């Protein structure tokens, strides 16, 4: 069984939430039951119980096992996130206050990230000024963009479509508007796009971004 | 096992007072500790730059200053011993020596800094642009750490000055000298921090 990053992350999430929910239910149920059963009315005199060593061991050991399970899923999923396949296509991403720009292997540039469906993409993250964070919720990936450092992340779009890119590290006034799109195109369309793309910013795409995200550009101007 | 210290406001609790002082020393230690973490990290990141930068610090001044601080620590320790033996005068002289040695330390430091500044090596200084990243960081740490240390020397000297007054006024005596001991502890800590600063900044070759 080979999970992709998204499934792996969601699986981990639901395992932890599932265990947590059970524990929470257990603790709350026991507590409310005791409050009911051993109320002053029903049980006027308490019993002098001050501890129980085997119980202490039990409720140290069982959670220990449970958290090890959680750690394991988190860790294996993380390994996967950090090991980009060798055949991944590399795109250089630059974050600056407050926009993203992308540079492809052939020198083409854009402000929307075009990627082919079904091919792993590795992003090299560079910052021109302060910390940012490149976040694509749909792909469950995120990595901070730190000046002076070369961070990376990778993902593999499995379906055609448009996915939001958000800046997830606070970077000043327009942090909330440091948005962009990943557009996953069928392989052929991507190839033809990237060959024809001029090594300059393609302006038309930026309006597309704004449209899709329904961002009121006006609110940007309220300083 | 319990403490008669709890028994009254007025009761003197020397051990408690000393404990408070030690706890305070820990915070000082960790204050510098934060900077030692930075130093270690940057030295790890820029080993060669650090070496080059350290060449420009004067080992002689550093060594003299080390000896000065060690000796001033000795005299503080001796002055407590002297007070315990009721040799009040001697105790005061020893503390005065400490102040002189500490003062000499600061004078040395002053000359060291001013030559550096004279050469344009200080934050935003004219020479800084010609230095490598690691050297800039080295000098950044150098100024902050030795500067903060010098500040502690000054505070320590003020404490010791007070102790001289206390002894002369009979407020610190052979059977009541916890304040002097606490001031001494502080001074020794300043010494210990220097014991580490010295090799880390002056002796990288």
């Amino acid at each position, binding site marked *: 069984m080979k999970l992709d990053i998204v499934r792996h992350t969601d699986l981990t999430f639901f395992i932890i939430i599932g265990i947590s929910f059970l524990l929470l239910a257990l*603790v709350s149920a026991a507590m409310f039951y*005791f409050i009911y059963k051993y109320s002053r009315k029903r049980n006027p005199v308490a019993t002098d119980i001050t501890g*129980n060593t085997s119980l202490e061991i039990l409720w140290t050991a069982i959670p220990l096992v449970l*958290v090890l399970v959680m750690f394991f899923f988190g860790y294996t999923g993380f390994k996967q996130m950090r090991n980009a396949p060798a055949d991944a296509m590399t795109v250089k991403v630059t974050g600056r206050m407050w926009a993203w720009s992308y540079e492809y292997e052939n020198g083409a540039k854009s402000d929307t990230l075009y990627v082919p469906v079904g091919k792993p993409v590795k992003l090299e993250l560079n910052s021109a000024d302060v910390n940012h964070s490149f976040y694509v919720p749909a792909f469950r990936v995120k990595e901070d963009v730190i*000046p002076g450092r070369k961070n990376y992340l990778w993902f593999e779009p499995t379906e055609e479509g448009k996915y939001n890119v958000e800046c997830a590290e606070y970077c000043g*006034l*327009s942090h909330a508007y440091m948005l962009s799109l990943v557009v996953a195109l069928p392989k052929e369309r991507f190839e033809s796009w990237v060959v024809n793309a001029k090594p300059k910013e393609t302006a038309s795409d930026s309006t597309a971004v704004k449209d899709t995200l329904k961002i009121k550009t006006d609110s940007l101007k*309220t300083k | 096992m*319990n403490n008669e210290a709890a*028994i009254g406001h007025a009761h003197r609790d020397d051990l408690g007072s000393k404990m408070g002082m030690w706890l305070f020393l820990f915070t000082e230690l960790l204050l510098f500790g934060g900077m030692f973490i930075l130093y270690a990290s940057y030295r790890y990141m820029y080993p060669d730059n650090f070496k080059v930068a350290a060449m420009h610090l004067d080992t002689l001044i550093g060594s003299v200053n080390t000896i000065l601080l060690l000796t001033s620590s000795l005299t503080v320790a001796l002055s407590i011993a002297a007070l315990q033996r009721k040799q009040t005068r001697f105790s005061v002289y020893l503390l005065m020596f400490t102040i002189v040695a500490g003062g000499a330390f600061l004078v040395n430091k002053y000359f060291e800094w001013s030559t550096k500044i004279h050469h344009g090596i200080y934050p935003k200084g004219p020479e800084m642009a010609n230095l490598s990243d690691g050297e800039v960081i080295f000098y950044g740490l150098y100024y902050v750490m030795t500067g903060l240390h010098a500040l502690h020397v000054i505070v320590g000297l003020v404490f010791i000055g007070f102790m001289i007054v206390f002894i002369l006024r009979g407020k610190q005596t052979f059977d009541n000298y916890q304040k002097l001991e606490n001031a001494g502890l502080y001074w020794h800590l300043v010494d210990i921090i220097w014991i580490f600063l010295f090799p880390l900044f002056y002796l990288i070759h």
Partner: protein
Amino acid sequence: MDHVSYLDYKGKHKGLAGWLLSTDHKRIAILYLVSLIVFFLVAVTFGVLMRLEMLTPGRTIVDPQTYNTLFTLHGVIMIFLFIIPGIPVVFGNFFLPIMLGAKDVAFPRLNLLSWYFYIFGAFLVILSLFVGGGPIDTGWTFYVPYSLRTQSNVTLAVFAAFVIGFSSILTGLNFIVTIHRMRCPGMTWFKMPLFVWGLYSTSWIQLLATPILGITLLLIMMERIFGVGIFDPALGGDPLLYQHLFWIYSHPAVYIMVLPAMGLVSEIIPTFSKKDIFGYGPIAMSSLAIAFIGYLVWGHHMFSTGISDTSRAIFSFLTFIVAIPSGVKIFNWVATMYKASIETRAPFMFVVAFIVIFSIGGLTGLVLGALNTDIHLTDTYFVVAHFHYVMFGGMGLLFFGGLHYWFPKMFAKMYNERAAKWGLLLFVIGFNTLYFPMFIMGYLGMPRRYYDYLPEYKIYHIISTVGSWILVTGILILIINLIRALLKKERYTEADPWGGTTLEWKVATPPSLENFDEIPVVEHGPYYRENLIKPEKSH
């Protein structure tokens, strides 16, 4: 015999000066209480304003810059002026000496000095809003390089945090010495109330972690004022080292917040269960364990920053380990209720709410502790929800719980318990309406510190904002109820309104200036009661 209560005491100074200059631990506690509540109300108002702004996409009431300063000040005031000092400076100051059978803390004058540091720091925070480049806009984390570049008045705000840190250190120092030196005869380490254990653990964190924050903030000042190269990447610095140092303090700081609250829970439960606590030793030791393991997990705030993969794995692992002792506490508390004889009075209900809400917060912390889920959820509203659950629903709630528990003792007035319970109920409902949607938003990818949002998050923001109004109503009821009690004419002088067993219930209400006429001698554990049914011998 002079039985002058600390409230009536007329010493050298009269009126206000009698409060501002008194070194009595109880009066200092009241000073702190008043100042804390003021700052809490300020910060909470910022919180409500933020929620109003998020009611609709785009601009609702403020512009982006104002929003950015709002959440920064909200965070800074809540963390440094409310929740970190919080329980120790109010209830610790008031009750630690009494619970130990002492007349005061070890260094009463130092104690007053820490309050002045606190107020001076608070004054600087307020000053920073009006001078220089205006209110700080970095988030409470002051991350470089943004905090080095922004025009806003970071230097002063950071200095304020430094000063408040000093106050925190002095309190911690004072408490450690008090606990070591001032225990009354018979009070061995394992006969101390569990609240004292919580304070003891907290004090060590305050003492050993705060200096690291102090120096980090000092370095930011140096960089901003003199241009010294330390963290600035333009000068060869490493912004991640800043984050390391910041979290080396700020993670342990979250346990500074919660350990005293946990101690308080361990007081309230046996009092209303009318029996000894279950697992005294494990609860006491888990406080120490949390304090010390808590030093080793700071990297979980940096999982997505590009620190090395190896260290991310180590930090994730340690994060899971630190959750175990918290679990031990929860289980022991619930076990205490087994075969108890429970009175569901108002303070007890706060604890019940705490156990559920804090568990939700803590368990979602586990989601953040796992590596791949944190990468997805970090810096989203999921984290915002997590920390409001543990901080506000944990310590914040218990701050009010403690107030209700000890209010009669401190002020010699009794509040209306029914109103308190209703206030609490609204609090719980409002709280969950406010913060639960944030978990969902976060999972769907809503980043935090966003002035604006995409339409798909709108519904959650609306629910959340409505929740904040319910919560406000709840808290207003609680506060007004207490204020009305304070205004009552007649004194409430019952020494032990709840049937507690620790020493503070043995002294007069309100306590006399010296706490005890005669230093008590302790024979039994803190929660020992006679006349309980002896448990049957298990096989």
